[in-house]
């Protein structure tokens, strides 16, 4: 466990170092997010892509955007890492880690999630303070649901990364993933059980329960939360399975680190 923490800490530190090294770009990203929050808090709904499905209260709009933001970044953290490390020539070094590549990617995703969470929290607080708006969000209830929802896009990220290992340039296809994620979040998962099995849709439905119907985590119930995580783990197993099949193919063809 200690070694896994060392790994997680290494990725977290790398996140921080990259933030500093690419400071201009990092500040640009932060500024964009801050402006988006200001616009949402000012009542502008056009930016909230998959939201609306979460209701049209101020809180729902904010949560809708944050959910969408984390879905996209979680997917990108997996796909872009594999793609970029392959491009720069360091992917094979990650593969030579004694932790195993799955753990390496897990630590990478967890570190990126934590970094994004801190950034979103800080910028939202700043936007609230600037605009003078007040929102009442059940963070304690939303956070576990958010984490459970992110397994889906991470799984899609693994599947896309696996395809990139084999087919190399697949960017024109992976750009479509963001539209797929919008569709998945908007799926009315409460209407049929099978719709809950789609990546991200059950989590988005639980977010709606919290934001529109005002339910607490207790009212949602442990069963639904467990189901959310089970579905998420299922997605992760499937996505990682696709990745492993592609990885095996790339290893047979001797093109794991090529791009």
């Amino acid at each position, binding site marked *: 466990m200690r070694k896994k923490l060392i790994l997680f800490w290494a990725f977290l530190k790398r996140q921080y170092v990259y933030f500093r090294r690419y400071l201009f770009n990092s500040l640009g990203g932060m500024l964009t997010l801050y402006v988006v929050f200001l616009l949402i808090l000012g009542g502008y709904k056009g930016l909230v892509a998959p939201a609306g499905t979460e209701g049209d209260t101020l809180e729902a709009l904010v949560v809708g955007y944050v959910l969408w933001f984390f879905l996209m970044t979680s997917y990108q953290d997996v796909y872009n890492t594999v793609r970029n490390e392959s491009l*720069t020539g360091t992917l*094979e070094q990650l593969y030579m880690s004694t932790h195993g590549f799955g753990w390496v990617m897990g630590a990478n995703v967890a570190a990126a999630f934590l970094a994004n969470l801190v950034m979103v929290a800080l910028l939202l607080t700043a936007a609230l303070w600037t605009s003078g708006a007040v929102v009442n969000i059940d963070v304690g209830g939303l956070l576990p649901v958010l984490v459970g929802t992110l397994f889906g896009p991470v799984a899609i990220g693994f599947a896309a990364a696996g395809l990139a290992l084999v087919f190399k340039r697949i960017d024109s296809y992976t750009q479509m993933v963001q539209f797929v994620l919008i569709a998945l979040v908007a799926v009315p998962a409460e209407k049929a059980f099978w719709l809950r099995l789609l990546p991200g849709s059950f989590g988005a439905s639980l977010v709606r329960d919290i934001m529109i119907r005002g339910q607490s985590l207790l009212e949602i119930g442990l069963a639904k939360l467990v189901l959310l995580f089970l579905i998420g783990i299922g997605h992760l197993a499937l996505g990682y399975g696709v990745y492993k099949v592609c990885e095996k193919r790339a290893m047979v063809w001797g093109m794991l680190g090529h791009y």
Partner: protein
Amino acid sequence: MVRVESLEKTYPGRRGAPPVKAVDRVSFQVPQGQLVGLLGPNGAGKTTIVKMMCGLIRPDAGQIFINGKDMVCRRTEALVDVSAVLEGNRNIYWRLTCRENLEFFAALKGRSPREIQPEIARYLDLFKLNDKADTEARKLSRGMQQKLATAVALIAQSRVVLLDEPTLGLDVQASLEIRELLKRIVQDEGRTVILTSHDMNVVQDTCERVIIINEGRIVADDSIEHLLDLFQVKVCRIVIGESLTPAQQQAIQALPQVLLEEENNGKIALTVPLEDAQVLHELFGILAANSTVICAIEQKQTSFERVFLEILGRSEHGA
């Protein structure tokens, strides 16, 4: 100890191309603390062998054991004892500093960056990167980047270090520095280092043993000294400062294996094998008969390059 047994790899042909046999029944062992060179022309299969030893390419057949651990079946366990530089200076993060790179890659191998600060300082010192410790890798020269990549492979404290073309693209000085460092690491730390190269000088200067690979097969596996001895052509070159009489020329041409060449400066060079003393005696007799002036007698040395080409030539004829 590294043990490679009957390793085979064929890359499937793609888009109608025929399959390529990259590695063909390759077997060898490398004991702890030896510096071995895998030498071969481009496309010989060296990189494929090294990547299979890192568990990055799946062999079709055969086994690889790193300190007794099976790299094919128990990859993660075996990786504890292996580190590698496969893409030269591309194996490091260019946006991280030397120190940050060393810390990050140590963590990938399960080592706490906090606990290995003395080691980081030692490697920075050994690789003369002290004053660049907090400089981003992208700002270093190619030679320094290559040194950093090698230091990154060493910080893992794995007992086997694999280096794919460690001096490729480096200038003479940087190449020499890397070679000296590798020798020092093997000598001081007792690690096993296997390096691939198509540069004869690098292998000759660094390695105590060389495995020559051609078309996926091992065509020689021996110490460089022994290979040089084996292929040493014992030849003597006699330079004459004046022209020979027709009778002398005729007599010399009648001698077996004696090569007569006229040089640009008007002198004549006679190349004679030393194995047959009788031929040498007869040649000197012909020259003495006319009191021909001899300017120089020199023994020709066989270079490792020539030995390598000879081995490759023989392997191709054999195939």
